[in-house]
């Protein structure tokens, strides 16, 4: 009776405007979007934004505290590390790794996983059983520990890291895609299309595929947050990003030796990770709700503009 979606022919632009308004209305989503924009900007224009070269050592200015502390200066806003490198500049440059690693891993894993899921869900039958059994088995692998082993043996590098991190994610995409395809195939309108004689290709493209984009996009955003955390953890353990590249996790690992004397070395890169992940998580959880009317109905059910729960 009460329907969420707009009507009429000018839908598309109105719908886009509607989404924009909904993002602006939700502080959490707004925060998420802003964080993401900021991160992308920092990554793209790192050299311009960062005041100093992140790898420029200045042994005369070692372990300087941030601006607010005694001995701090506005030259090194967030202080310097044990080699006199500017912490703020390193964090800005660290954005590049923190964003490219998830971009690469999630893209790789997303494409592969979605393909497998489509195959599994659409073909059904034996192929489906076999694929899903394999995925189940792989899912029971001890994740991080295995990643560590691989990295230790193969040797850490950008690409091994990206690939190792995508090893688990593709399965999540495969499972989700398969589930979506299966439930979309069950939809009555899909059967209705089959009954008017639509070909399998048309069914797939016209009736099933449109159901996949929103959830898969949401998953991609969510998994990016996971990848940022995993990359940071692996870099912290010394098996991720290697110097001279910079990464927030790596910076925390280096700062760890000075945890008592120069805590800012771990505080700020850590905050960078936390804010990035939180922002992306907020965006993902908002997307999940926004893209799914049922979910949004149930969330904040007491809020004024929510539809009802009763049965009529």
């Amino acid at each position, binding site marked *: *009776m*009460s*329907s*969420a979606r707009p009507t009429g022919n000018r839908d598309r632009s109105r719908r886009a405007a509607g989404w924009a308004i909904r993002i602006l209305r939700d502080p959490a989503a707004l925060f998420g979007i802003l964080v993401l924009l900021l991160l992308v900007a920092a990554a793209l224009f790192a050299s311009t934004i960062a005041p100093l070269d992140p790898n420029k050592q200045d042994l005369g200015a070692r372990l300087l505290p941030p601006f607010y502390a005694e001995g701090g200066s506005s030259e090194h806003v967030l202080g310097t590390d044990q080699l006199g490198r500017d912490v703020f500049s390193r964090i800005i440059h660290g954005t590049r790794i923190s964003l490219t690693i998830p971009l690469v891993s999630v893209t790789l894993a997303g494409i592969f996983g979605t393909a497998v899921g489509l195959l599994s869900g659409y073909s059904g039958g034996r192929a489906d059983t076999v694929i899903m059994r394999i995925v189940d088995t792989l899912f029971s692998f001890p994740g991080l520990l295995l990643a560590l082993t691989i990295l230790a043996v193969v040797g850490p590098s950008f690409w091994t890291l990206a690939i190792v991190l995508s090893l688990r994610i593709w399965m999540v995409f495969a499972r989700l895609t398969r589930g979506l395809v299966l439930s979309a195939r069950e939809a009555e309108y899909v059967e209705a299309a089959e009954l008017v004689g639509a070909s399998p290709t048309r069914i797939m493209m016209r009736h099933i595929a449109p159901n996949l984009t929103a959830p898969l996009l949401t998953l991609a955003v969510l998994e990016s947050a996971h990848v940022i955390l995993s990359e940071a953890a692996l870099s912290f353990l010394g098996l991720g990003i290697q110097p001279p590249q910079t990464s927030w996790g790596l910076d925390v690992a280096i700062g760890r030796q000075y945890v008592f004397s120069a805590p800012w070395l771990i505080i700020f890169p850590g905050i960078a990770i936390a804010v990035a992940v939180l922002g992306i998580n907020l965006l993902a959880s908002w997307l999940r709700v926004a893209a799914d009317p049922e979910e949004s109905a149930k969330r904040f*059910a*007491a*809020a*004024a*503009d*929510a*539809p*009802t*729960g*009763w*049965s*009529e």
Partner: protein
Amino acid sequence: MSRREHLLEVRNLEVVYPARGGTVQAVRDVSFTVDEGESTGIVGESGSGKSTIARAALGLVELPGRIVGGEVLWRGRSLRNKKYARQVRGPEISVVSQDPMASMSPILTIGTQMTEVMVRHLDLGKKEAVVRAGDLLEKVGIPDPGRRLGQYPFEFSGGMQQRVVIAIALSCDPKMLIADEPTTALDVTTQAQILDLISSLRRDLGLSLLLITHDLGVVAGACDLLNVLYAGEIVESGTADELFYRPHHPYTAALLGSTPRLDVKAERLTAIEGQPPDLRQVVAGCSFAPRCPYATGRCESSPTLGTSSAGRACACWHPLDSHQGNLTGSEGRLGHA
């Protein structure tokens, strides 16, 4: 009007709930009563507000719905008092709803779901409650109650599930049963069994019944008094015979005309053209007027549910007495009383 205390009295009830694009006026100025031992029906199509009324009669309106006016009284006391409503639900009023499978917790045994209310409201020990639960199952026609009590809802067939739901509803010996579309999810032979069970329980236990349904056939046999609901309002009320044989409101008549009957072969059903109004907008005047063949300029102002004859009320400026021949006569079956 007699000042006798009614068992249930709903007085000028107004319920709204927010929805996208406005506030839905789900129930508008609805009044009716149910007395001891009486069986009252509320007939309406989907969206007419009948389930909302059923909930309100239990002192429950789910968020974000709100009662914005009127009263729901049980034995003269307001069920809008949450504490009182909580005391009354179970031992005084109970409910049977449409889908028995959905109505019971899938992961608790029948026994648990039957005894939990007894332990709370009847002050029974666990053991006594189990014995009573077994008796009740037997009473609603479930063989081998001892074994059945340990089973889960999914282990029963649809008809058996509805029997169990009825048994659960009866577990604290209530005075009134609210049955909200109790047979809609069931097959016709099972429906007959359940309707039969409800009416025999009613006789044996002296239960009052508030039966809410869209099915005129179901109320015809089960109810003494009827209220016809349209777009959140009661448009006509009276005894079952009066409403079925001499409907005054054009909607009631039209509803009868559009219901195919098994016993009479009609050439053509009299459909009601158009759609019910959108309750997010304020309905000015008679809500049925846009679909009504008799509507005139007068219908732009709201007719009141005036009492036209004893115990009978109809909210219409042009009740069908005046032009009976037009509708009932030509159908040749509404007038065969």
